[in-house]
């Protein structure tokens, strides 16, 4: 050992040594990623554990850097390792990001539809019932005044306590909820009032009665009728935008999303169960489905992102409502300047050019 120290190591030996070390560290980085990607639940704590591991690897790279000196081959090895580390770091961040947002979107203290109604409108008068079957409390509709103007307000309402959750059916509407919403929209159209909708649902309720009463038909009809409603409409995804049950009140002139809201074709758990055959892979599914506001804006599926208070809307309901107010006013003013025909033309163009991802 002592004898070898005195001799400067040959270039080849340094390169081989560094390559060996780099390989080991690369495997460690990969293992850190595997740990995160294969985690079932508690992915946040596992991810921070993995990030700490990456920091350790980073330190060892710095040590190897000194050994490598000016050896070209060794430097190249370390450079590659460094890049691998960056990739893993990004993967881990992306992997946990979408799920973190999902948890914020579902945060129990997050403002719900009526919290915004209380702060944004005056003279709110709820209207009930679909005139055919009943009154679905998962869907709330009502006349309201918005900065002096009459508007129709529509949205899914979550419950705060067990009793309200039950009454609101966890904000998963039945067909009569969608039919009530449509009735409210037609009423708004008749009297020339804008429609402001607030989306916050895991999805339309998948129940026996819902199927018997035509859940599919109720949603389908709303999509078609909203597309040709002759008054301005703005839909805002304030929490969860769950599939057709969300879209059924979100075909509008403008679709906004709160910064920490999600909007997707199926819940991350549902997607994981189908595509990975394992509901615990929900964070993988959340990432893969691209469900955050930033994702949706990049895909051209929403028109604007509404900022939230520091850390999320749950931290300050008043501020969350104020930030939404700014954006709603701006959008409504722009729409108010259009004639009904212009409005209809532009809405159609917007819907017709949505999500065009094909070739040939």
């Amino acid at each position, binding site marked *: 050992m002592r004898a070898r120290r005195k001799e400067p190591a040959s270039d080849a030996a340094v390169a081989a040594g560094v390559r060996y070390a780099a390989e080991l560290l690369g495997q460690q980085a990969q293992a850190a990623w595997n740990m995160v990607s294969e985690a079932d639940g508690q992915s946040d704590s596992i991810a921070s554990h993995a990030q700490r591991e990456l920091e350790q690897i980073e330190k060892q790279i710095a040590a190897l850097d000194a050994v490598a000196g000016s050896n070209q081959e060794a430097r190249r090895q370390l450079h590659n390792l460094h890049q691998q580390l960056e990739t893993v770091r990004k993967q881990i961040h992306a992997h946990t990001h979408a799920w973190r947002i999902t948890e914020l979107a579902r945060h129990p203290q997050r403002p719900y539809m009526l919290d915004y109604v209380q702060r944004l409108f005056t003279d709110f008068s709820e209207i009930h019932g679909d005139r055919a079957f009943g009154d679905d409390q998962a869907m709330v509709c009502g006349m309201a005044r918005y900065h002096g103007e009459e508007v129709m307000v529509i949205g899914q309402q979550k419950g705060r306590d067990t009793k309200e959750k039950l009454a609101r059916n966890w904000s998963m509407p039945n067909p009569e909820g969608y039919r009530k919403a449509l009735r409210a929209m037609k009423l708004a159209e008749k009297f020339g009032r804008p429609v402001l909708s607030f989306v916050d649902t895991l999805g339309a309720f998948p129940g026996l009665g819902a199927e018997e009463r035509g859940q599919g038909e109720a949603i389908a009809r709303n999509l078609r009728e909203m597309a040709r409603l002759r008054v301005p409409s703005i839909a805002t995804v304030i929490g969860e935008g769950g599939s057709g049950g969300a879209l059924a009140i979100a075909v509008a002139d403008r679709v906004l999303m709160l910064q920490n809201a999600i909007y997707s074709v199926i819940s991350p758990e549902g997607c994981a169960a189908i595509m990975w055959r394992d509901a615990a892979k929900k964070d993988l599914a959340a990432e893969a489905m691209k469900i955050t506001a930033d994702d949706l804006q990049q895909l051209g599926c929403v028109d604007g992102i509404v900022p939230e208070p520091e850390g999320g809307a749950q931290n300050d309901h008043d501020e969350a409502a104020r930030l939404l107010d700014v954006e709603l006013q701006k959008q409504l003013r722009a729409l108010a300047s259009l004639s009904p025909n212009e409005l209809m033309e532009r809405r159609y163009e917007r819907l017709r050019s949505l999500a065009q*991802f094909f070739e040939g």
Partner: protein
Amino acid sequence: MSWFKRESAPLDAPGEKRVRTEGLWVKCDGCRQIIWKKDLDQNLNVCPTCERHFRVDAQRRLELLFDDGQFEVFDNGLRSTDPLSFVDLKAYPDRLRQAQAETGLSDAVINATGKLDGRHIVISAMAHNFIGGSMGAVVGEAITRAIERALQHRTPLLVVSASGGARMMEGIVSLMQMAKISAALARLDDAKVPYISLLTDPTYGGVTASFAMLGDLNIAEPGALIGFAGPRVIEQTIRQKLPAGFQRSEFLLQKGFLDAVVHRKELRPYLARALNFMAAAA
């Protein structure tokens, strides 16, 4: 004695109607009879014994509907660009390539135009054998173009649904197709151009919750499974068994969500009759 028990066991799970062998004969899941494939083909893929309607692919569907089986396809060959770069256990582009190789289709729908009982008609037929007939950007665009073509020429439109619903691998892009198609259907409706929706086995999810339920007439083949949520999801939610015949076309007819359940043999006469009613009075 256990084999006796097996003989009297309930039939296969709903929806299992696919052909069991590649040979010259097939077993009917309705009556368990062995049927010569040729007999089945000549009988519009309906079991001669129990009338069970076997699934037919999109190409065959078009041949069965148009006069003399003659039609011209249009706007076919569109391909998905994998908007989410989606990878689950397999990469989406690989799934697409596999489905394209297996079916000879570019995606889950064929648009065609031709005549039915001497009248011009546009037909979009969904292909359930292409990733479950799921709807992504290509299906959305193709059906929208079929609607636009019907509108432009004031030609009646028939859409034949056969789909599990949204294409998961296109996520939100898939959901947006429901809005796009429904908006186009609103224009077709405003223009009073006839639109008939034919729901076949199976029709679910975002397809049911958009164009499949928006026909001037919504009709279905006997025994077809039709719904918004899948039966398994419903059972998990309500924690009880679903009644017999749940989500079959006869169930929907009884609940008031179909105008008619029409035997495959009667489809052409039924459509001809309906189109006659819907033709603008001279």
